[in-house]
């Protein structure tokens, strides 16, 4: 749906706002270094995220891919400081050069929703059922701009709803979340999260609860917003199709660790890590014969309480040397030419024979 031009006296709210002079414009917006998140479970500590390192550059979309429990959501929660207080977070998260780990609630609050915003997976659950959609969007603006006038606020809410492609935004703003359809709720969520023009938008499975048509529309809205506000997006998903469509770079996670980072073409055409290869091999392809069976990754993802020694993926890996390096030594993420990084001992050896070998 096309954005409707508003010729009312709406303040030009969606302009790029001035950037802090000390914000380190040139470098990446977000630098995560050796992030480690542990939760106490009974007597032991469970490591949900282990040594995760990555950057998000300005105006970039980074796709974070992994199955349930691979630590992708925990990573995003750690960035916003939203983990429960029992979680132990180590490592470093630099946002525009500022360390986020160890910041107090009071120091994080001005950042949340203002500089780093989040789009949640289940928009129905993430919208408060007792407030009108417009009021909730207004709320997310008011949290950070206390002195905004009612008229400006209202105008801005309507414009935001319009930007995310909600028809008749003025009337829709007065409805409750349960009166919205699934796709519209997700758009309203996005409108809330971009209300303050954040530098970084973390979208945690924004399309998982939606059907494919609506998925495409929501992703299109995300892209349009990125063009308009030059924000960076961290797109967390388990859907490789979504990543292929919108991400610039991809980070693949398995059992709390990063197994591959590369730009989106490299990941799809030359996956280096056997897990990535397995994921791609398990995608249905239009050019495959209909009686071909889909490749699969044998076994189950490991329990975080009892991770296998060595490479966490080795029990399921068709290339693993067992017993040998793969079952004894944890592989580190390393550079494999043209910016592609993978954490696999045998990355060079298996490079030549990607998908077929995974069966």
């Amino acid at each position, binding site marked *: 749906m096309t954005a409707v031009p508003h010729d009312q006296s709406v303040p030009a709210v969606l302009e790029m706002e001035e950037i802090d002079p000390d914000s380190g414009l040139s470098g990446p917006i977000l630098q995560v270094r050796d992030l480690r998140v542990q939760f106490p479970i009974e007597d032991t500590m469970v490591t949900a995220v282990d040594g995760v390192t990555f950057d998000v550059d300005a105006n970039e979309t980074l796709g974070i891919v992994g199955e349930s429990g691979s630590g992708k959501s925990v990573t995003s929660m750690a960035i916003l400081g939203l983990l429960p207080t029992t979680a132990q977070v180590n490592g470093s998260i630099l946002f525009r050069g500022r360390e986020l780990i160890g910041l107090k609630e009071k120091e994080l609050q001005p950042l949340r929703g203002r500089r780093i915003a989040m789009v949640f997976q289940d928009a129905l659950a993430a919208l408060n059922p007792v407030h009108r959609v417009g009021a909730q969007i207004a709320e997310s603006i008011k949290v950070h701009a206390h002195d905004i006038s009612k008229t400006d606020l209202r105008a801005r809410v309507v414009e935001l709803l319009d930007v995310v492609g909600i028809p008749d935004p003025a009337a829709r703003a007065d*409805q409750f979340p349960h009166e919205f359809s699934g796709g519209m709720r997700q758009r309203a969520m996005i409108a809330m999260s971009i209300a303050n023009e954040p530098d970084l938008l973390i979208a945690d499975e924004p399309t998982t609860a939606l059907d494919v048509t609506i998925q495409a529309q929501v992703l299109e809205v995300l892209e349009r917003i990125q063009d308009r506000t030059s924000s960076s997006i961290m797109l967390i998903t388990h859907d490789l199709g979504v990543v292929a469509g919108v991400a610039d770079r991809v980070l693949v996670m398995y059992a709390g660790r990063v197994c591959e980072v590369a730009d989106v073409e490299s990941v799809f055409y030359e996956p280096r890590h056997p897990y990535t290869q397995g994921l791609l091999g398990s995608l249905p392809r239009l050019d495959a014969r209909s009686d071909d069976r889909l490749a699969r990754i044998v076994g189950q993802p490991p329990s975080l309480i009892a991770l296998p020694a060595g490479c966490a993926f080795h029990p399921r890996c068709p290339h693993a040397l067992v017993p040998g390096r793969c079952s004894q030594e944890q592989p580190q993420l390393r550079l494999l030419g043209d910016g592609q990084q993978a954490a696999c001992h045998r990355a060079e050896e298996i490079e030549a024979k990607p998908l077929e070998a995974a069966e």
Partner: protein
Amino acid sequence: MTTLGPHDRSGPATVQGSGFGHGAEAGGAEIDNELAAELEGVPLASTEPPARSQWELFRRRFFHHRLAAVGLGLLVLLYVAVFTASLWVPQNPRAQDVLAGTSAPSAEHWFGTDQLGRDFFARVIYAGQISLKIGLAVAMISTAVGTITGSLAGYFGRWIDQLLMRLTDLFLIVPGIAVLAIALKKFGSADTVIILVLAASFWMQVARVVRGQVLAVKEKEFIEAARAAGASNTRIITRHVLPNCIGPIVVNATLAVAGAIVAESTLSFLGFGVQKPQTSWGNLLFDAKSNLQFDEHLLYFPGLFILLTVLCVNFVGDGLRDALDPQSRR
């Protein structure tokens, strides 16, 4: 698409209603995916004008609840009647006619007269001033205290929860009436003392109910979303948590009104509550007990008023609970 200003609420609403209607009927295959997506799941929104004011919706839902509407009407009538008694009740509630003594209800004395020949209708109406005042004040104070305690305990958890809930337990385990009686003997039985003492014995239920609700609500994703949007704890509690607990809070508040009126009656009946020359419905009951065999009407009328008030308040509570839920579709 509409060019109406954002503040014109009715305008866009009707545009939307008819526009969507046409699309669905005539458009058929023409509807593009997006419009179809918008249509799906929102039929109600497009058939009825959606942009009502909060107050309008609330009122509509409330008055849809017949008993609540009747209850509210009676209650308002009762409060107005009781507190304007000096303007319209011809008899003086203190004027005695000792020689006449007790008499049954008659045209002259609607509710009869009591042992001292006082007009019992006037007595009951004036006594309502105390009872209704105590009921309302106790409900407000205990609801406020209970809501604050319960929401702090539930939201922050850990030692704050432990501290506040053990305090609540402490108040709960003491035998209410006995402590109330002692407290009233000690501090005197002025209205404010009675109100505070009763409130002190009514806030615990509210606190527990609110705590339970808050525990459930604070795990909802929209709370996390609010945190992710940078909202402070105060804002999250007041804007996001408590509005989602309003139903039980309101119901408990109405129960407290009823409970306080009954408790005050009990205390007064036992002789610890409102002291003469002031009278409450409880006092009237107390006075009636001496000659129950002959003058039953002295028991029935105050009892009837207590019953009526409590019932009305509870119906209003029901109506409020329904009306405050934005998802109710009535």
